[in-house]
């Protein structure tokens, strides 16, 4: 049986429930599934996190690299973010470079973290103008049941918060597997969280399952950081949103911020 057929069936199911003002797993439209976070699970990574939201599972791993800085920011390090939805998570995924969907999801999660001025790139400078630290954040989806964007962002965030700085030798090269006592420098007051809404037959949903996503025709992701909005991204198909709906989603995401922050920390 192909995954396509499963998606058609699950989408039908989701629509039927939503028409009755319900969701298949009994949640409210704006509730998250149970969230489980385990950090430092991958011993080869410099920082790592394994996040489960319902049946969706994403592992984020961090590796440091030394690079030359960008010419327009000679004293700043950088972050490189990558999300792969592997064949392990979704058997119909073609082998080869990430799908355009995975690329989009990765870029949205990246935007939420980057825009929040959360990572202190100045403190990642090693030799001004010459050598800086690059933080590689690689996320792999292990199980896919919707809401990969938020799951990836939560996993990346958790990995970043628990990542130790590497030791450098006298030539400022990384000594692998040796760490200082310092954590990756972040601005803990600006903790960004991603909230992705899907719209199914006019109803807004948070933390959509695979079936609910397939039944939807529009998607909107917000990056929230306390009472500050750091990112907007409209995606999904060709469905639309009204300004009222955007404002509603901002209010909902802001009101959920503290609740979700507690679950991650």
């Amino acid at each position: 049986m192909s995954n396509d057929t499963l998606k058609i069936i699950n989408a039908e199911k989701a629509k039927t429930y939503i028409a009755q003002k319900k969701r298949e797993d009994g949640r409210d439209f704006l509730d998250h599934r149970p969230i489980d976070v385990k950090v430092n699970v991958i011993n080869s990574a410099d920082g790592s996190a394994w996040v489960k939201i319902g049946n969706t599972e994403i592992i984020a791993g961090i590796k440091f690299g030394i690079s030359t800085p960008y010419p327009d920011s000679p004293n700043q390090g950088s972050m490189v973010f990558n999300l792969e939805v592997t064949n392990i998570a979704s058997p119909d995924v073609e082998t080869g470079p990430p799908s355009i969907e995975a690329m989009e999801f990765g870029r949205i999660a990246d935007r939420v973290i980057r825009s929040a001025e959360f990572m202190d790139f100045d403190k990642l400078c090693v030799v001004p103008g010459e050598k800086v630290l690059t933080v590689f954040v690689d996320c792999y989806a292990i199980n896919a049941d919707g809401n990969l964007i938020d799951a990836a962002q939560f996993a990346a965030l958790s990995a970043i918060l628990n990542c130790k700085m590497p030791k450098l030798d006298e030539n400022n090269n990384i000594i692998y597997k040796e760490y200082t006592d310092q954590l990756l420098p972040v601005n803990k007051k600006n903790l960004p969280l991603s909230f992705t809404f899907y719209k199914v037959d006019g109803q807004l949903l948070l933390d959509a399952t695979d079936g609910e996503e397939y039944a939807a025709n529009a998607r909107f992701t917000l990056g929230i950081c306390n009472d500050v909005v750091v990112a907007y991204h409209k995606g999904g198909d060709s469905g639309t949103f009204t300004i009222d709906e955007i404002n509603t989603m901002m209010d909902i995401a802001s009101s959920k911020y503290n609740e979700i922050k507690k679950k991650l920390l």
Partner: protein
Amino acid sequence: MNTTKRIVTPGELITDKRKKLGDHIYIRENKIYSGVLGILNETDDYVSVVALNGPYLPRIGDGIIGVVKNVTQVGYVIDIKTNQDCFFPKSLLTKELVKGQVLFARIKSADDSVDLENINILPKGNLLSVSSVKVPRIIGKNESMLNILKNNTDSNILVGKNGWIWYVSKNPALLENAINLIINNSQKSNLTNTIEEYLKKIKG
């Protein structure tokens, strides 16, 4: 006389006696081995293994449930949970089907391609997917398990040999829970009674 029930792994030696061979068995150097992960079914003169998972292998006459995956100009591409989809021409049906439509049909032939006959459109209901190897357990001897499910969850249930289950139910969550229990415990004895007790306990 049945020997004690046990799970066998692929390649495991079963016996060096001569017996009639059933499914998932192979012979090497005059000894009988298991060809799959499954439950050993051995008597004095017969041996077979019931697989615990595995792909659906269509046989002529099988009653199956299919889902319309695609509608083309001349017909329908129907997913029947095998490694290739079925094509059914529009000319052979009086009604039009739509994408996502669920139907019941029989396997007419299963050589290079699989052909269907006796297509019956099913009314709107729910669809659950299980491994085809679990279907006999869900139906039970003389439909005993199926009747327990229908009566104790107030449901109308149709089970396709290919592992799709169509149902309309007053207690959908209870029915799906019960089916999951059957699937995850299919190797245990006395399952029919256990499931009946479980359902009666929840209802009562």
